[in-house]
């Protein structure tokens, strides 16, 4: 049941009415409904691993309480380790075990050992990467005394399994989200209206742009050997747009749904294509993941390596980004993708500009030439790295890069692949992608592109935009609906 489906619309409408009209007087009952809704939502995606989600929630709930209660530092540490082992162990087992075995087998075979370790049939719990990071941050924060352990199991279980974010984030930190679950939610008109706008914008990005562009990126990445260099570059460009539209579209919908229920969910994207450099990009792309890793991995590492100066910082960045890469899945492509992004940081670290922040086109309508150049260069770097991200394996990515360089630049060879030819649909999609970027540009200082608060716009203008987006969604909805980030 994904957000763009009719079944979700029916589910959420009923849930919403119960949430605000039946259970709103009693916080506990409202939280109980929220949990039931979240488990129902999760069970529809895959009921077989609901018990795992409940068990993880229960374990970390008790760990939090006992970590806080225990005075003995050694025991505290031991309890923390239990939580970390469960969290990281679960991730490693479910996501990476077969990958390690397969890689181990490949190494053995390359050394001419006739040994084959069997892989296991493992069912991957949906959203494991997201809810595991939530539980880990929770017990770490309790351990460090940053937050109090919640004594209300209903609050904690809801934090772990909140249905708008459980499958693909954003990854809320307990210190920001748990207090919202603990206090009575009051319906706020402006929050709800803004939530609806954000959902509409997210649906537009996902249904119209991401799902329609996918047809071209799939064809181009599958047939890269016989396509021209310019087509392959177009494929990389389109995939970058698709990935953004898909994931930020999902995030917008998740945040919007959270707002409809009275929650402020963590921001996940901040118009990343207007970033001035790669550090700026990662401050704007998948923010909840990068801020999580910055807090729990990069900062401790950079402190540990501080004696090594810039070299230590480079090492910390590389480790951090390789982790970001492999967080996406068990494939060497993700590790290389992360490593490459880490390498992109090296010039910034050496020049000492990694943490410099400057608002783009401040007080101006258009960016300066230099800013445009920076934006373009950053986009290009991201686009090239996304080839590795999208590729099935390293060989595929390498082949794609080589084909860009070695195939003729403009000689199209699209026999049997009509979709890749320049056609009205492709041009419309490119046009709509540009519209998405233009909207984003003018709204770059807002939470999302359709945020009209504090703006002098007429109602007719706003409603025309809403209806245009709705018509585009209805008109361009395609059969493909799965979100890219569900697999992570």
């Amino acid at each position, binding site marked *: 049941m994904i957000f763009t489906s*009719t079944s979700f619309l029916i589910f959420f409408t009923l849930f919403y009415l119960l949430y*605000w009209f039946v259970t709103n007087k009693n916080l506990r009952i409202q939280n109980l409904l929220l949990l039931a809704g979240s488990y129902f939502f999760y069970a529809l995606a895959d009921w077989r691993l609901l018990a795992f989600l409940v068990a993880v929630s229960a374990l970390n709930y008790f760990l939090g309480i006992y970590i806080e209660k225990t005075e003995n530092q050694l025991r505290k540490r031991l309890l923390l380790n239990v939580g970390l082992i469960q969290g990281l162990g679960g991730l490693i087992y479910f996501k990476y075990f077969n990958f390690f075995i397969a890689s181990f087998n490949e190494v053995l075979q390359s050394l001419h050992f006739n040994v084959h370790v069997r892989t296991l049939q493992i069912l991957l719990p949906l959203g494991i990467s997201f809810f595991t990071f939530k539980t880990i941050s929770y017990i770490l924060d309790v351990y460090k005394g940053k937050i109090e352990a919640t004594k209300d199991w209903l609050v904690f279980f809801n934090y772990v399994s909140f249905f708008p974010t459980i499958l693909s984030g954003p990854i809320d930190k307990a210190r920001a989200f748990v207090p919202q679950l603990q206090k009575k939610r009051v*319906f706020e*008109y402006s929050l*709800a*209206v803004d939530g*609806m706008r954000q959902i509409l914008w997210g649906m537009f990005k996902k249904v119209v742009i991401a799902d329609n562009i996918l047809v071209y990126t799939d064809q181009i990445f599958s047939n890269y050997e016989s396509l021209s260099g310019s087509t392959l570059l177009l494929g990389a460009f389109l995939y970058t747009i698709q990935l953004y539209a898909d994931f930020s579209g999902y995030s917008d919908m998740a945040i919007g749904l959270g707002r409809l229920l009275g929650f402020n969910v963590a921001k996940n994207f901040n118009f990343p294509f207007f970033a001035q450099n790669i550090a700026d990009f990662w401050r704007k792309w998948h923010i909840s993941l990068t801020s999580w890793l910055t807090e729990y991995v990069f900062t401790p590492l950079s402190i540990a390596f501080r004696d090594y100066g810039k070299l230590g910082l480079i090492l910390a960045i590389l480790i951090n980004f390789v982790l970001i890469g492999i967080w996406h899945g068990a494939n060497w492509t993700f590790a290389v993708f992360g490593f490459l992004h880490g390498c992109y940081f090296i010039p910034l670290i050496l020049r000492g500009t990694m943490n410099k922040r400057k608002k783009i086109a401040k007080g101006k309508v258009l960016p300066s030439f230099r800013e445009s150049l920076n934006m373009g260069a950053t986009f290009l770097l991201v686009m090239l790295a996304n080839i590795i991200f999208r590729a099935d394996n390293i060989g595929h990515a390498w082949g794609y890069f080589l084909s860009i360089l070695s195939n003729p630049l403009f000689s199209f060879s699209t026999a049997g692949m009509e979709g890749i030819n320049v056609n*009205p*649909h492709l041009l419309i999609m490119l046009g709509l992608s540009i519209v998405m970027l233009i909207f984003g540009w003018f709204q770059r200082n807002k939470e999302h592109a359709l945020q009209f608060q504090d703006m002098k716009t007429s109602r007719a203008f706003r*409603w025309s935009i*809403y*209806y245009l987006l*709705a018509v585009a969604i*209805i*008109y361009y*909805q395609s059969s493909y609906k799965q979100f890219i980030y569900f697999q992570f």
Partner: protein
Amino acid sequence: MNKFIFKIIIFVIPVLGLYVVEGFLPSFTFTYRPWEALDFQTKFDFERTFYPNKKVQMEAVGQLCHHTPHAIVKEETWKTDKLGNRNDTFIQNPDVLIIGDSFMAGCCVTQDSTITNLLKSELGDETKIYNIAPGEFSRADYYLSSGIIEKPDLIVYSKSERYVPKSLEEYKDSRSLKTDLKKLFENNSTFSGISVFLDKALRHYSKNWLQARLTNQNGDGVPGVEGSGMFFFNTAAQEDDPNLVRNTDTDLERTKNNIVSYKEYCDANGIDFLFLPMPNKATVYYEYVPFKEQPDYLFKLDSMLRAEGITTVNTLKLYNDYRESNDKLLYHLDDTHWNSTGVYLVSKELAGTIENSRLLARE
């Protein structure tokens, strides 16, 4: 909160209005033939293919070159029974049960010229014939196992030359809640009406029509040799279909094995079995494609099936023989399916085979 809900309703009404209006429009409003007008597109079908208890009369054109000057308008009437199958009425205890694909369902022929009605004319009105096409053999097993239809004396199974029949998946759960619910929905006219309304409202035909017109879609047929006026089915669009026949020995073997398994199923249940292959238009009119020679897939299949003791009709030979002495077309120029002449010939031959093989021999 009230203001918010009011605003949402105001926003949604025009959008929802589109769906509601479409739910009330005649089913054929945005279609060029009755098949799509009556075909369930959403999940509200409850094991039915077409909208139940409907009669549609419209000017239809073929699928291969619609919205082009080559399209040929023909008046078609379709009637469906309470199960959504194309029959004049529902028959619970048929003598003959017809299973098949779009040919057997009567795509491109009017109600009086369906194989069901023409075969009835040949065998006599006292013979009860029930047609569940389009559907694979598994559907028949579902009907029989769950008691929706009583055991017939004869099953006629037909398959187009283009596809390998699917293997039989026997229906085992005849007493489940799911089956009971399905039956409830199938038999209740209110549920049926609601499911049809929802399907019409949610199948987005107006949107599809608009998209198709804007992008100038006009069928994916391939024109035959100049002067023939014929269009042929373009198999390129279905290259990924694992059941598409590619004229290989494997396809022949798979087809034979599945048909033999159907025969065994019938034998085990005391039902006679007859196989009726339907040649591709491109096989019958091979010279207009043009092919150098006529594909012999069906001839090979015929020999293989006869060797297995399966009663079958050699439809391709029948059509070839007819073409030697007649100029009348057996298939529509603008469609891949047979016309009333093609159905008539087959129904006559089928009736003859049934009688000669004493398949419906009554005591």
